[in-house]
């Protein structure tokens, strides 16, 4: 491919990196990343991936921007309150970089639509930027079934965690966490609160994993769970083993169809109000 002078300048700090170079930047421009949830995690990830020149970015979110989102969801602005988050996200990405083709899916990811969304552009890498366990398991199962790599992450209060799944290269999310907790046993960040910067730290690590996967640079966070405690400013990288009896990626999987687990009633009610 031929870079324009403007592109050479825009991506110069990538191109001069020995591990990225011209070929790596071409891979990024041909890369396709799906971001599910444009909230605390998805917002910074989408901005950095857009700036990096990921050629196609899909955004999945059924919510509209609420004033209470702006404390952490840096892709949205005050003037976007009331606007669909995927539209606000697309506008912000393209304001930074017109090279990016942003595809919007203004809907909540469910067992009925998630495979079609992933297949829509045959995305290379998926980012889980959601805020509830049912959808986290849904994303995991869909990615295992479609053999797609993805980055899991979660943030709450002053804590965050992330892991990367690559088919055949280590455990999936369900190997480690088995099943969603019963609704309402575990608070969501809508009930528990979250320090705004947590999404910036963890979401940016997710974006880093997407870039590393697409350019084939370095080692991914496969087979590890990275936890971050902001109060102690402590990162821990915990080694994880796969489960050969895992219900979705194990030797004899029992889950062959996607499941819409029950989302805590308050969390749905809140999300209608709070987003």
């Amino acid at each position, binding site marked *: 491919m031929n*870079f324009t002078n403007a592109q*050479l*300048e825009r991506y*110069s700090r990538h*191109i*001069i990196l*020995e591990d990225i*170079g*011209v070929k790596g930047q071409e891979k990024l421009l041909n890369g396709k990343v799906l971001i599910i949830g444009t909230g605390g995690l998805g917002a910074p990830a989408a901005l950095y991936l857009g700036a990096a020149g990921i050629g196609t970015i899909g955004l999945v979110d059924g919510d509209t921007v609420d004033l209470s989102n702006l404390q952490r969801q840096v892709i949205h602005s005050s003037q976007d309150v009331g606007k669909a988050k995927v539209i606000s996200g697309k506008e912000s990405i393209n304001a930074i970089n017109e090279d990016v083709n942003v595809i919007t899916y203004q809907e909540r990811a469910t067992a009925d639509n998630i495979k079609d969304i992933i297949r829509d552009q045959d995305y290379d890498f998926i980012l889980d930027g959601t805020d509830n366990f049912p959808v986290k398991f849904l994303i995991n199962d869909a990615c295992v079934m479609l053999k797609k790599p993805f980055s899991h992450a979660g943030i709450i209060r002053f804590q965050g965690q992330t892991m990367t799944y690559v088919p055949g290269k280590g455990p999936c999310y369900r190997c480690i966490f088995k099943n969603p907790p019963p609704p309402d046993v575990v608070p969501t960040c809508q009930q528990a609160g979250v320090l705004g910067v947590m999404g910036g730290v963890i979401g940016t690590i997710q974006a880093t994993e997407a870039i590393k996967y697409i350019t084939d640079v370095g080692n991914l966070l496969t087979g590890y769970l990275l936890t971050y405690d902001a109060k102690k400013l402590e990162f821990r990288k915990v080694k994880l083993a796969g489960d050969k009896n895992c219900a979705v990626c194990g030797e004899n999987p029992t889950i062959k169809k996607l499941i819409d687990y029950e989302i805590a009633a308050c969390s749905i009610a809140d999300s209608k109000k709070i987003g």
Partner: protein
Amino acid sequence: MSERKPDGFVDITDVVCPITFVKTKVALEELEKGQILQIKLNEGEPIQNVPRSLKNEKHKIINLENNNDGTYTIEVIKEGLAED
């Protein structure tokens, strides 16, 4: 310059750091390993830095000529494994 004819040429006298090295890398991408790129560059910062960056990425500088007009011409073998 060398007895071998260069396989490619790039003029980076119209740009400044880091685009100098960016344009050089783009030109090298067009070549196969072992082929020769001829580069025209300005004295000062470009002649200080571009050859060093090329060596860091394992390309071998085989010629350097002062054109006595504020520019230099260098020749480099793609991944000729730098040594000095």
